[in-house]
């Protein structure tokens, strides 16, 4: 799928260019519809969500700080779709009981943002996931792809809710350290 010029198209949509909007729909709607179905698991709901998502893309195109990178532009659009579906999913479920116990988190090193160039990490996430226990890596990936809550993840992996929280939070910190390390090979 051609994604090179989605950033340009978003720029034109911010100026209310309907032809550009139509092109974005042609290029991205099949992928975004698949995201809606995967997260919402209901076709009618997914159709409504897809409409909302494209209305949001129309309204928010101006806030995409384009840097000419087509992959980032699609990632921006995909994030709108995922967040919308996740919000929709959380809204239709009864709120879960708050069981958030403060977890002891290991400290991260100095903020790497001063060193690392902010760019798409591409396939690096896969190699960093491999460094985690397989169960935990799978939990991270399923949480993202299916928009699962902590409660659902705990049920799926048959562990207590707070265990799942600890798993996932520690996994996130390990991933962050691994990605930062990859972004700074000269210091690894």
């Amino acid at each position: 799928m051609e994604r090179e010029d989605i950033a340009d198209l978003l720029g034109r949509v911010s100026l209310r260019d309907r032809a550009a909007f139509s092109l974005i729909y042609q290029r991205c709607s099949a992928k975004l519809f698949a995201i809606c179905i995967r997260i919402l698991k209901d076709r009618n709901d997914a159709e409504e969500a897809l409409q909302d998502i494209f209305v949001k893309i129309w309204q928010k195109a101006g806030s995409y700080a384009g840097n000419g990178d087509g992959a980032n532009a699609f990632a921006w659009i995909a994030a709108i779709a995922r967040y919308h579906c996740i919000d929709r999913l959380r809204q239709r479920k009864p709120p879960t009981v708050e069981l958030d116990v403060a977890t002891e988190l290991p400290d991260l090193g100095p903020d790497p943002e001063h060193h690392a160039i902010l760019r798409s990490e591409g396939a690096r996430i896969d190699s960093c996931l491999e460094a985690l226990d397989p169960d935990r890596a799978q939990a991270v990936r399923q949480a993202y792809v299916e928009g699962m809550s902590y409660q659902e993840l705990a049920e799926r992996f048959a562990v207590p809710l707070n265990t799942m929280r600890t798993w996932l939070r520690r996994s996130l910190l390990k991933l962050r350290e691994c990605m930062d390390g990859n972004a700074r090979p000269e210091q690894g």
Partner: protein
Amino acid sequence: MATPDQSKGDRSRDEVLAGEYVLGVLNLSERQQVEARLRHDWQFAAIVRRWEANLAHFNVDYDEEAPPAAIFAEIERRIFGPSLVLPSNGPLAAIWNSLPLWRGVSVAAIGMLALLLGLQWASELRPKPDQQLTAELAGKDSAISLVAQYDGASGRLAITPVANGGAEERSLELWLVEGEQPPTSLGVLPQTGQGEILIPDEMRARLTGGVTLAVSVEPFGGSPTGKATGPIVAAGEILR
């Protein structure tokens, strides 16, 4: 709110919270709290953007599924309304697409701008060759450069974007986008680097939170049609 000298523990918490938000495991009220924070805490927003870029690779797990054909028409109806009249084939088309009209409007607008600039800045624009230093800061493969102008007398250094000329001179034009209206030109940034635009009185009330400002690269002197024709180099919403 995060501060530049946040402690390591705070950074761990922010990294985890941002990661949880991007993964999607938070509940609705937690998600809303994160979104509220994203609107004013740019450092935290950068952490979220980084997780988004890191995890975007998981998007390969989604297949493609063509939505029903009627969906796009419904989206257009929701955005543009039911009885839509396209400028290109509606009764207003002749006026809307009239080149002389837009040329006239552009010339009048540029003239007005030049007049206002002239009145406002006449003394400052007068060249003082021995005191004015200029540098052009060109980005690689970028449609725009920054012109730095240093006034030795006042000690003021002004940095202004200009369009990269190449073979033909180009101009940067500033646009105001309100709701679903076509963009309104706010004027052309002067190629000289003296890039201040004085907003006409009648336009000032329209520069409020929620409207979008955008800059496009146009033929020298601005878009000949009154609509943005060139690539958009920057766009952003005015924050409330």
